């Protein structure tokens, strides 16, 4: 078991004017499940590979525990890339399927058997150890493959989009399995995905990257409630946060005559405009004609709730990440009495549930 430290770790490809990973600083605690997430090209996989020893580190250091591994070869780092393409061998027993890689590493027989039995216990495979994979169900086979990584008892597990091969239903199942397994094993794990839902449901902490730069590294809750900048605000959450450009007034910001109160000291020095973010679930239908006027285009009824997608009379910002391009105004309303398509409604943010960002820097204003 070990901590992992990215200390100003930088990777710049030859001929590329900007680094693919730029001065990355993350400290991962022993036993923690950290998810690296971001849009394609953000540097998440490169960061993982730097840790694995597959990418050269041009600047900074990477530590596993107290050991500087920056210049060690992959096999000397005691990390295991858990990899989606494990095959099982039909003529070998389940125990041999799990333990054969240890034999290659020269681990003695007794020790192999011990580790295989321990892993089998965790994976509920003990009764099957002497059987052939053919006798197993699909889910059990899947666990045997995981067992192959577990018996190596590495200090760190690395997983690069391990679910990308699966269809939506299997993704959810396997996601849960991996997360619960990791918690039982308590092995420090770094997991890469482009899917923010996956990141938010699996990670103890989530690190969001964009253009090679770490945007924020926090628990899923904190990330959701306190996005550090406009990018994170738009990237995390599904459906996406509504982001709009609004004028600053006395004591707050103005939404079509409705003042959203913001602490005066927070608004000092931000200029005339800020970016205001409101999550779809943080909006109330207004009984008078104040707030954001929205014409309803689509109503998505989900039973208890309904989402409305509409055209707002507001300067909406382009969304990012998987929500990119789509910029309707989205609100969650009571599913029993949703507005109708074509109706014009007024929406007000719930008190205390707005996010304010500097219009120039995109950084969060206030807490």
């Amino acid at each position, binding site marked *: 078991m070990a901590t992992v430290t990215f200390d100003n770790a930088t990777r710049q490809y030859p001929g590329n004017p900007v680094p693919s990973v730029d001065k990355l600083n993350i400290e991962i605690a022993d036993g923690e499940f950290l998810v690296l997430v971001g849009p394609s090209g953000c540097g998440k996989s490169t960061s993982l590979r730097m840790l694995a020893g597959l990418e050269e580190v041009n600047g900074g250091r990477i530590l596993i525990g107290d050991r500087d591994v920056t210049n060690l070869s992959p096999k000397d780092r005691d990390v295991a890339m858990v990899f989606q393409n494990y*095959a099982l061998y039909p003529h070998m027993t389940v125990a041999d399927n799990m333990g054969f890689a240890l034999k290659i590493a020269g681990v003695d027989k007794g020790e192999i058997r011990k580790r295989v039995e321990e892993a089998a216990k965790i994976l509920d495979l003990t009764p099957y150890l002497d059987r052939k994979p053919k006798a197993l169900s699909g889910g059990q086979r899947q666990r045997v493959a995981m067992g192959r990584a577990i018996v190596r008892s590495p200090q760190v597990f690395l997983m690069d989009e391990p679910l990308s091969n699966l269809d939506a239903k299997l993704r959810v199942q396997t996601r849960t399995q991996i997360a619960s397994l990791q918690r039982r094993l308590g092995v420090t794990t770094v997991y890469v995905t482009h899917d923010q839902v996956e990141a938010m449901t699996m990670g103890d902490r989530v690190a969001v990257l964009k253009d090679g730069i770490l945007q924020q590294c926090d628990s899923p809750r904190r990330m959701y409630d306190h996005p550090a900048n406009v990018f994170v605000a738009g990237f995390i959450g599904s459906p996406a946060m509504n982001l709009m450009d609004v004028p600053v007034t006395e004591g707050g910001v103005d939404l079509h005559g409705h003042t959203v109160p913001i602490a005066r000291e927070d608004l000092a020095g931000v200029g005339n405009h800020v970016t205001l973010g409101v999550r779809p679930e943080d909006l109330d239908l207004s009984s008078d004609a104040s707030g954001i006027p929205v014409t309803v285009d689509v109503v998505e009824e989900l039973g208890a709730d309904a989402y409305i997608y509409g055209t707002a009379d507001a300067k909406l910002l382009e969304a990012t990440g998987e929500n990119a391009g789509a910029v309707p105004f989205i609100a969650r309303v009571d599913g029993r009495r949703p507005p109708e398509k074509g109706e014009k409604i007024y929406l007000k943010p719930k008190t205390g549930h707005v996010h304010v960002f500097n219009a120039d820097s995109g950084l969060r204003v206030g807490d």
Partner: protein
Amino acid sequence: MTLEITTARPEAALLDLPWSTPLEEWPESYLAALPRGISRHVVRFVRLGPRVLAVKEIKDDIADREYAMLRNLRRLDVPSVEPFGVVHGRTTSDGEPLDACLITKHLQFSLPYRALYSQNLRPDTAVRLMDALALLLVRLHLEGFWWGDVSLSNTLFRRDAGAFAAYLVDAETGELHARLSDGQREHDLDIARINIAGELMDLAAGGFLEEHADPFEVSASIIERYHTLWDALTGTERFESGDRWRVDERIRRLNELGFDVDELSITTDIGGTEIVITPKVVDAGHHSRRLLRLTGLDVGENQARRLLNDLDAYTAATDRQGEDEEIVAHDWLTRVYEPITRAVPRELTSRLEPAEVFHEVLEHRWYMSERAGHDTPIEEALRDYVSTVLPAKPEEKAVLGVDTEEMPVISMFD
């Protein structure tokens, strides 16, 4: 959704395949071979006109990626299966969406390793397979390709004059970089070693592995073979400026390994007493390119080496060393090579490739001569080979079946 077929060779017959049926349920009438088991993804071989195609059902984005990757690898002239197309937008008759299909051409006369091991084998088969796979891996790495899932089951083998030539079959995990780091190369080797050990241990558990072959030794040997070859191809050499012959010597060595040197960097130190050479660009296929230029024959590297040797022998025997090489080569082709390869009866042509037959006939003559204690004429060797040896060989033109024995790990669930 509408069916969308991307292919470099539009063929109307593609539209006749039952795309609205999950691949696993395709009727036998379409299949060129029956599935012999299960693999990670569903794969089927279908006949389309004169061709056999491999169809693999995978997620849309992965299908596109692998198709593009295989096209890139072909462009880089790395031995790999030829991509044929991708089919998107499949739906069942009820409108349920189906995964995409990646289509590749079946590589004629190629053999999956499990098929090889089910035959009677020469004792050093495992070693020859490692040689072939190490060479393939070096060639891929020289082009900046990181494989990510090196294994015997992701490779097909073709006979190559007593050796084997390896072809990449599965590029699903692969990535193309400008250059690979040492760590990436080591990682591929590590994956190779573990996968191959697993595959050989499985053969041993099934009773298919030759007795003295140790899965660990064999799988570890790929690393040594790889490094030897990599160093020979890319290593820097220093010598005194008086030893200039060593430049030619290095090129000759690379040619012998089957590589042409397209770019060699030569530098001297400030005093000019020491010369440093490093091959910058090397290109596989030294012998096969030369043979192609001389005769138009497109064959494996070792087969080409063998044929060129025979051409040299012919040139010497007919005392035509001073003549234009191409003219002599043409005569050799029409007087020696073609009469032999054409003597194979039609019903036996699907046993071995013509160049491999030629190689075997030469081998056969050598053994006959040794037994007889005197030279055997090639015609006699040919007659004997065609009537006694070739008919006993298995059909190898279309040995189908990716590694259908392995178990799916991810794609099936409780």
